[in-house]
Every structure is written in C-alpha cells, then in structure tokens.
C-alpha cells in the first residue's frame, strides 16, 4: 500500500476494484464499511461478483473478469471529458499525460460498457463523477487486478487513475494493494524474487552484485542473470532443465495454475525438498520432507500490507522435532561449505539492516514499541506513513498509456462460461492452515461453484447439486451454489479445497512482465453429472 490502514478514516471516497475486502481482508473491510455506513463516505465497487461491499456502494459496476483496464480507462475518459481531473497535479508531478489522454479518448462509456458487459453506461459516468469529486479518494485493489495476463497493466492503470485525480502522495489517498499473505510484502522486500536482492536492488546491476558479494563474503561471483519465476521453473522442470527444487512453506500443487502440469513438473525433478508444517499435497512428491516450525513457535519479523514491520513472538513450544526454518537453512548451508553463525532470528535481522536500506533504521526493540513502516533509513527516522509525498521515487510520476487486451482464453461454444477463482472468508489459500483448524473447517467444510441462476436454469442445475466443471486443462466435480452473486455467465470457485481443486482448471497464461498467472479468468463448461 502506498498509504496506511489508519488513513482509512481520512479518505472521503473509496474505489474498490478486484478486492472482495470483507472476506479476504475482513478487518480492513470492516473499517471501510464503517466509513461508508456510519460516515456516509462515497464508495464505488468494481467486481465481477456481487460481493458484500457492493451492497454499500453508491455505484457498483459488475464487470466481466479481465476487463479492469477498460473500465479504468473508461472512468478516466469521463473525468477528462468533464475536466474533473487534477490538472495542476498532473502538470507538476507527472509525465506521459498526453499519450495517456490519447488512448483514454477512445474509451467512451458506451464502448467500455460493451467490453465490460455493463448494461447501463451512465453508471460509469456516475462513478467517475463520484470518484473525481471526493478528495482524497483511496483506491484499493487485490488479486482481482493482478492475477491476469494483463496484471501489470491493471496495476499501472490504477496508478494512472490516482495520478489523474491527484490522489497519490496524499494522506487518505493512494494506490493500495491488499496483500494476500501475512508476509508477502516482507518476502518481496527481502529479495525472495528472481530478479532482485533485498530492497528491490536488481541482480543485473554490477554495483549490487559487488555490494552483496562483499556483504556476504562470497568467494565466487554472484549471478547477474535473473532467475526463474515459479511458473517458469515448472516449465523448466518439464523441459528437463531444472533438476532440484527446494520448496519452503508453499504448496504449488494446490496454489499454482494448471495442477496437472505442476504435478508433471514435480515428478520430473531429480530432487525435491519440501519444508512445511504438515504433509501437503506438494510434499507427497518430495524426496525429503523437513518439519518446520509453525508461526506461533517462532520469533521473527513480518511486514504487512502497509509496509509496517511487526515482531512475532514465540507463543508455544515447537511441535515434535520441528525446527525454525532459519536453523534448518543454516544447517544445510553449513554442510555445503559456508560458515553461517546465526544464533537467533534477531542476528539475521541485524544483517538484513546492513544490506536493506529501507529497513536500516528498524530494530527489534523499536518495533516492539513503535509503529514503523519502511522506508526507515536510520534509527532516528520515524518510518513512512505514505509514499510519494512530494515526489515519486523516479521523480515524475509516469502515466502510461494502456490499451485493453482480452484475456488469454475467451469463451467459445465448447467452453461457454467464464471461470474465476478466489478465496472465502473462513479459509486461506491452499487450506494447509485453515482446513486444519477445526472451527474454520467445520464452518465451510467443502468447496463449491457459484453459478448465476441463469446458468443454473440453462444447464438445469439446482442448488446443492454436484456438477462437473471442466476446462481445457482438467475437470472437477463440485457442489453447485446457485446465487445471484456472480455475473451471469461467470462461475466462481474458491481454490482452498484439494477434493475439488480449482487449480486443476485454471490456465497458466502469464503476464509477460511479472509472470503472474491468469487465475482470475479462463473458459469452462458446466455439465450436469446425473443427467
């Protein structure tokens, strides 16, 4: 998030796009609801499903999955046409406006409505006016923006939109991605990415290479070639180029698109190590399984969606012979010829501070008492509540002209229904944790496919009936839930359930820049099982 959770009360309006906030980030969802319901703040919700937040919205735009860029361009079109944008901000703080303007010109409400499947184009005009007339306005998004072949474009469109309205670099505004995992922010910050060192320092840069070589006292030259992303690595395994894989608390068999393909890749490997807390669907394919500690058994820091670094404490004793993940890694590394001598998580954190400028001012002692959000370059620095205050990190904010591109797989007579995936309130990701928590599992014990009554009647399906959902990649049997939540011709499946794994169906098309898979849209067909 460019901005902070505690700024929610400062905002005058909210644009939620591709985030089912009350289920996936319930605590923030409640905070947003409070402002909208009790303080009558304005709300525009854009989502293919009639999610809870849509009930409180001044305008709800039910778009076809994969049309985010179009709708954002459409809103910008109205704002520019009616001269509602922050011209001063755009002039002094941004560049690329002319090209942007030119592209946006084509996106008339009528044109956008036809791309997005919105019946009434005037809703787009209404939404645009609401968003432009309330300041500051905060934009929140989640995987409903990013998990597309055009994910990067979706994110850039969000940034364009907020720059256009002058809502970046102000309290209560911002482009605010809601991070789906408790430390996905930190994992990125720490350089657990194929192309960057900690603090997003590119591996392809000579200075960075030398800096880390020295800091880590490495004998050989560090590689400057960006590594593989997860989905790429699976392809490499199938191609025979990747021989060994070390999986650390992840469950790609469940979480990655196109499950058959993932399993094929894992089976092809020479050596697979899985380090986890339970026997996951992925661990079954491993050569060695190492029991790691669960979160309540360890100490360490995590960074939340608003870049706030917080300390986790050891609450319970490790289960069985499970060990801290850092201890296991240190042991393996030392057996491979290095001499790591960490005695605690804090020892590692002290090293992180020396190579991660944005974390340099953060200490365990400080985060125990203070609210600190990176960047925090020195111990005297209070941290940063919101980014891009007076200028953007690159200087001027770059407005990028972006055209709408359709998803990789569109519906056709054979696969006539759009399939989208996501989470439910009671479960999390692949269910490793939530499905092993009694109350959560009892509450929602099984998966389902949400079908609009139109589909239900087209395929003669009744609520609660087991149906077959198939795509070009696979087929599952799953209980139908007939509801007006999804847009007609859109089916939704939560992906937590191994018995009815949504990712047997999803497509592994990737965004060309960031390689994110297009989980949120593919073509499927629904069939009655007991016809």
């Amino acid at each position: 998030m460019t901005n902070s959770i505690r700024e929610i009360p400062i905002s005058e309006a909210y644009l939620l796009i591709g985030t089912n906030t009350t289920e996936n980030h319930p605590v923030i969802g409640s905070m947003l609801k409070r402002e909208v319901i009790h303080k009558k703040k304005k709300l525009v919700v854009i989502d293919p499903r009639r999610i809870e937040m849509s009930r409180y919205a001044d305008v709800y735009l039910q778009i076809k999955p994969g049309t985010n860029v179009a709708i954002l361009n459409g809103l910008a079109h109205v704002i520019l046409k009616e001269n509602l944008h922050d011209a001063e901000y755009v002039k002094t703080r941004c560049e690329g406006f002319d090209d942007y303007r030119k592209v946006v010109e084509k996106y008339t409400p009528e044109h956008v409505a036809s791309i997005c499947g919105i019946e009434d184009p005037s809703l787009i005009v209404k939404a645009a006016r609401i968003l432009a007339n309330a300041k500051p306005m905060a934009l929140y998004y989640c995987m409903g923006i990013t998990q597309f072949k055009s994910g990067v474009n979706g994110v850039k469109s969000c940034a364009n939109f907020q720059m256009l309205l002058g809502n970046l670099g102000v309290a209560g505004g911002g482009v605010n991605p809601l991070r789906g995992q408790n430390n996905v922010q930190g994992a990125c910050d720490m350089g657990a990415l194929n192309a960057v060192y900690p603090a997003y320092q590119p591996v392809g840069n000579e200075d960075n290479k030398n800096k880390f070589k020295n800091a880590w006292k490495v004998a050989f030259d560090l590689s400057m070639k960006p590594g593989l992303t997860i989905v790429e690595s699976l392809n490499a395994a199938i191609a025979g180029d990747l021989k060994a894989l070390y999986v650390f608390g992840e469950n790609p068999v469940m979480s990655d698109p196109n499950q058959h393909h993932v399993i094929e890749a894992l089976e092809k490997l020479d050596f697979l190590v899985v380090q986890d807390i339970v026997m996951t669907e992925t661990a079954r394919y491993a050569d060695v399984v190492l029991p790691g500690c669960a979160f309540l058994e360890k100490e360490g820091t995590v960074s939340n969606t608003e870049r706030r670094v917080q300390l986790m404490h050891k609450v319970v004793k490790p289960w069985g012979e499970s060990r801290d993940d850092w201890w296991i890694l240190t042991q393996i590394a030392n057996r491979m010829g290095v001499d790591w001598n960490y005695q605690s998580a804090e020892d590692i954190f002290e090293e992180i501070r020396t190579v991660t400028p944005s974390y340099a001012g953060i200490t365990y002692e400080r985060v125990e008492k203070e609210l600190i959000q990176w960047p925090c370059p020195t111990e005297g620095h209070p941290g940063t509540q919101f980014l891009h205050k007076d200028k953007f990190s690159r200087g001027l904010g770059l407005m990028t002209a972006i055209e709408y591109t359709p998803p990789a797989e569109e519906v056709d007579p054979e696969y006539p229904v759009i399939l989208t995936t996501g989470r439910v309130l009671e479960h999390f990701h692949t269910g490793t944790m939530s499905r092993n928590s009694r109350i959560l599992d009892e509450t929602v014990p099984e998966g389902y496919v949400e079908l609009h009554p139109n589909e239900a009647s087209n395929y003669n399906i009744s609520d609660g009936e087991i149906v077959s959902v198939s795509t070009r990649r696979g087929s599952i049997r799953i209980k139908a839930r007939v509801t007006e939540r999804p847009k007609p011709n859109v089916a939704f499946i939560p992906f937590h359930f191994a018995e009815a794994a949504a990712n047997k169906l999803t497509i592994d098309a990737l965004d060309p820049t960031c390689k994110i898979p297009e989980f949120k849209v593919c073509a499927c067909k629904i069939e009655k099982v007991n016809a």
Partner: protein
Amino acid sequence: MDTIQLTFDGKEVTGKKGQTILEVARDNGIDIPYLCYHPRISKTGACRICLVRVNDTALKPSCTEPAANGMKIDTEDEEIRELRRSILGMLLAEGDHNCLYCEWNGECELQRLCHRYDVPEPTGEFPKREREVDTVSSNGLRRNENRCILCGRCVKACSEIQMNSVWEFTGRGSATTLTSDMFDRIGDSSCVKCGTCVQLCPTGALSFQTVLGRGQSWELQKESSICIYCGVGCKIDFYTNKEGVLVKAMGNEQGPNEGHLCVKGRFGFDFVQSDKRLTKPLIKKNGKFEEAEWDEALGLVASKLSEIKSATGPDSIMAFSSAKCTNEENYLMQKFMRAVIGTNNVDHCARL
C-alpha cells in the same frame, strides 16, 4: 488542540477539549470504574457505574459528560460508593452470576467490581427472567444470557467494529434481551464469528467454544504475535494454558487491527497443535516416507544439492520461498540460493 485543566480528587490534570470526563481520567491514569463504556465503541451511558461528582454537587456519568475547564471531579465518595454498590447489587440480582460455573471467572469485569465494592450476595427475593442459554448453535461462540448485564458492548462491537449488526436488543425494560438477527440463534444468524463481541463482553455472557476445559483464566499465559493469514498483519494476543496448549486469541489494540480480528485470526490457530503436524524429518525410500534423524536428512539435502549443483550447474536448482515465513527466513533463503547455490532461482507466491 485546545487543552483544559481540571482536578480529579484534588489532583490537577490536563485534558483535551471535547473529551469526556472519563476519557480525561483514562488518559491520566485515574481509575473510574465502568461497565458499558469501551474505548473502541461509541458511548452508551447506561450502566451508571461511572457516576462521579462534578463541582461538589451534581452526580454525572463520566463516560458521557463533557469535561470542561476548571471542573472539579470527585471520582468517589461515600454516596457514590453506595450507589455503585447498589447498582452492582441490582445486576447480580437480575442475572445468574455464579462464578463457579463461569468460563470467564477471573477475567470478568463485573466480578472484579463486585469484589471491589464488597457487593453482598443477592438474596434471591426478586424474580429472575429466564433468558437464553445457547452453547450449541455456533461452533465458535457460546452465549449464556443469564450472565448478561445488557451493557450493549456486543451490540456496538458488531455494529461499529465488525459492522455486521447481528446483535441487537429486543424486548423492553426488565424484559429486554439480546437477539441475533430476527430472533435467531447465533449459530443460525449471519454472524461471521469474528468474536469481537466476546472480546468486549465484560462478563461471561458471551464466550468462545475453545476455552472451556482448557484451564482457568488466571493460569493462562499471554504472548503476542502477528496473524498468519492475510496481509493486514493483525496483532493478536495468544493465550496458552499450563500444558502449553493454545486456548484463545484476542485482538491486540496496538496492532493495525486496533483489537479487531476476523474468524481466521480468532479461530484459525489450532492447526499449529494439530495431529497433522510433521514431527520428524521424512526421507522417501522406495517410494515410501520413512522417519529420519535431522542429521541424516540435513546431510542428504546438502549432499544432493551439492551434487546437482556440480553436475548441472547452480541454475538447475530452484527454491520457492514463502510469504508465510518471516523476513529473516526469506532473507536467508534468497541468500542461500544466491550465495551458497549461486543462482537467482528464487521466488515465492507473491503472484499466487
């Protein structure tokens, strides 16, 4: 901001304009007892426990009365003590407050105040209304309204923090009761089990299904951590019993969540102590996993990785790091891949 000066029991303190007497008192560490007030919800003014004397004359509820410059407050005198004792006595008589059977024994705010004001045991002369006891309909929440003092914190927790408005008062006067939705049982209602009502309940009227039989409140140990689920980073106080078993999770007010939690943060922790946990390293031999000692497993991983590295090069090895692991562990994993294996093949599920 405008400041105001006032005295509490003769002590000069500074407050902010617009604060109530109770808010000034709390900011200055002055103890005024209360039951319906809670800093996270709007003011109610219903329990009347927090009455104080203002300027030597009027008794005012400190939770709703605006503090004013030059006010003289007495937080307690004989008359106020007597009133508090009487009101607490009324509450004891109204419900069925048997601490012996109550899972909130030791943590109950009513119990604490009754001790403090030496409230006599109710005589039982006044008829009690049978109220709802529902310990079965929800797998998360228990409800025993005979312990309810109708302070309204749960109603406001649900309508002002969770924003679901499941709880509401119905009936009137001495027949007032709580209802969830349209006279439904809590388990049949639209409750999403965030548990905020339980966290704010000053008595044992609302409670969690997880606490019973897992030790008494004063035996529990508290330690904070950060929720393992989504990216909000809710700070949670986890309670464990003498055996080290996790008992309950309470939202910590210092975190970004300001004390609020969702159903996952509240109830999604027992996987940590589930039978499904791995207890020992496993090595697959002839297609079957066999338990191994750490030394053997670690040695095997190190030697296999070294072997593959020298055979097909560092780029033939990949690691999936984890957004569920700490900064330290992620840092170490990328360092391991880059500095020990010699590849940038490290990624995690940020995109998934």
